[in-house]
């Protein structure tokens, strides 16, 4: 198979090349960058972004957008945190320390699984509100979610009565949630893999998942084929909400602190990850593989810059480089696509 047909079929190859180039650039300056541990850490650090990006992909697929995920994350983490704080109790547990049985006090609260369900439930509820206003109220997605962003941060503030949830309010299990490892790989990475696999299966093999693409590429045609476009849009937002709820908990557990402005401004990174990964903002096109790689690109940029050993004056260049690299990644993706289309046309002698 010629190389360009391979490129057309798997357009993620271009993205992999960009990531490889970035890694090469950073490791030229700092050989410590290209180590297994560091690479694993980058994946772990990007995991939550990738989880959010898969949810955002669903929303973008139906031709909608969600810029209220910062608010959703803050609200669901805060509600979960308050439940956890109210049910907090000290329990005495026997543990083995150096082979000697000792009694230790461990902070216990609602079981972790329930906490996750609460967080995802609150997130999904926010998604229902977003989705119904967009799908049934016919309000434009940017307007709705911009308004919801304001509302959700306000509600978080009211719910929390202006008090943050600190580490002392968290149960041991919740704090250890993002610190535990399985087969030497962090729990966040496993969660990302699980979410990615579920999402991949959903949008590839399930009828409802395929409907997301149908609604996004041509809503009218989908409606005529008997797809309930409004319900599909609602569903996409509910998925986004639930995923944002999960991500909020992951951030809360990682930072061991839940504030009322948790991760404000993060939505733009998530959208950037999707767009770099080849998801069309007008709907109907996008793949999980691309989204994961898009998130990874941003992760490599964020983690690579501190490793560049920029000191003194150069320290202040980070922000500029970050923005510039996103622009370069997006634009080079477009240029590559154009070249592919041209190549395609030439091959067919048009």
């Amino acid at each position, binding site marked *: 198979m010629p190389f360009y047909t391979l490129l057309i079929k798997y357009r993620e190859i271009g993205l992999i090349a960009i990531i490889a180039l970035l890694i090469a650039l950073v490791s030229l300056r700092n050989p410590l960058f290209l180590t297994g541990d560091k690479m694993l850490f980058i994946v772990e650090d990007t995991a939550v972004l990738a989880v959010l990006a898969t949810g955002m992909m669903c929303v973008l697929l139906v031709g909608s957008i969600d810029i209220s995920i910062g608010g959703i994350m803050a609200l669901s983490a805060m509600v979960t945190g308050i439940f956890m704080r109210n049910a907090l109790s000290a329990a005495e547990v026997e543990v083995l320390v150096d082979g000697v049985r000792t009694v230790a006090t461990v902070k216990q609260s609602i079981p972790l699984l329930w906490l996750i369900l609460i967080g995802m439930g609150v997130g999904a509820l926010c998604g229902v509100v977003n989705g119904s206003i967009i799908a049934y109220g016919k309000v434009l997605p940017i*307007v709705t979610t*911009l*308004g919801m962003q304001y509302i959700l941060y*306000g509600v978080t503030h009211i719910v929390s009565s202006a008090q943050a949830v600190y580490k002392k309010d968290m149960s041991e299990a919740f704090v250890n949630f993002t610190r535990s490892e399985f087969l030497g790989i962090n729990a966040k990475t496993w969660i990302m893999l699980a979410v990615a696999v579920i999402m991949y299966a959903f949008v590839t093999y399930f009828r409802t998942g395929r409907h997301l693409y149908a609604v996004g590429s041509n809503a009218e045609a989908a409606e005529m084929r008997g797809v309930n476009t409004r319900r599909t849009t609602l569903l996409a937002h509910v998925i986004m909400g639930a995923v944002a709820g999960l991500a909020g908990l992951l951030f809360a557990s990682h930072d061991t602190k839940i504030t009322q402005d948790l991760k404000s401004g993060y939505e*733009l990174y998530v959208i950037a990850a999707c767009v770099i990964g080849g998801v069309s903002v007008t709907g109907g096109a996008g793949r999980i593989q691309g989204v994961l790689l898009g998130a990874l690109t941003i992760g490599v940029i964020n983690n690579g810059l501190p490793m560049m050993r920029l000191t003194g004056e150069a320290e*202040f260049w980070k922000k*500029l480089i970050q923005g*510039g690299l*996103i622009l370069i990644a997006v634009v080079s993706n477009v240029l590559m696509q154009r070249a592919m289309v041209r190549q395609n046309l030439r091959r067919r002698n048009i």
Partner: protein
Amino acid sequence: MHRAKRFFLRWEWLLVLLILGVFAFFSWKMPGSYTFPKLLDQTRVYMVDVGFMALGAMLILILGDIDISVASTAALSVTAMSVAYSAGSGMPFGAALALALAVGILCGWINGYLVTRFKELFPMIITLSTQTIYRGIAYIILKDQSAGSFPQWFAKGLGYGKIGSVPVMLLCVLVMFPVFYVWLHRTASGRRIFATGTNIVTARYSGLRTDRTKVILFTLNGLLAAVGGIFLASRTGSVKYTIGTGYEMQAIGIAVLGGASTAGGKGSVVGVLLSLVLMTCLKNGLMIAYNDSFILNLSIGVLLISVVLFPNIANMIQKRRQLRKRRVESAANL
């Protein structure tokens, strides 16, 4: 009769009603502390800094695009201004002001160029990255310090000065709005902008230079952002690279409240002016009553959604009723 009916069914009347409602509510709740002179004083916050950016945001929304880099553009241009003036390079303040405007124009032009050259990319993504880039440059110039020490007249005259009891800043805005109204709603070039936003393909086939229109409007948007930034700097008195963070979303929110739609082709200068007045009334009242920016944001969010949602629902109910009526009629005819 029909024309009169259409005149009163316009979006702007809803905003007028809301303004009256908000004003009545707060003067009833807090008699004495919520008065017109105090409101006039408050206008500097919303109507000026955000006002210019909201006008720009509306122009871009009419095109069907979106620009989230305006606050960064403002930050970069006032950074350039303050550094050029206070670095001791001997640049007169007038020249520094001109430099700020030039930087704003350049930033806007870059946005416009990128948007028209890479049509596959959603403007939101382009302006998202330029947002980071512009603020990044401001960060490189200023580091984490602040620059200031502007001439006396800049803060005293422009920022806090008054003519009679009307702030100078407000007068500047009140001059701007009629100019924009005439240009956008009463001239051919204004109609061309609406045509481009309503259907870009038809507009191009009708012989409009749509790309040029876009680049010009993005450039103008950058200029407006710089003007807004200058007014903001005259009020704060010093400039940090974080100046105006989050203003872009407020500007877009106000433009949408004023009747613009992210789908393009809709927007009104009067609407933006009214929604600025509404915001000023609301913000002033809520700050006195609760002194809490989160409550303020919450009510802005509710307002933003409900103002678009309720007319939509009313419209849908009306349509359904008409449909049912027609069905009944056709059944009777059979």
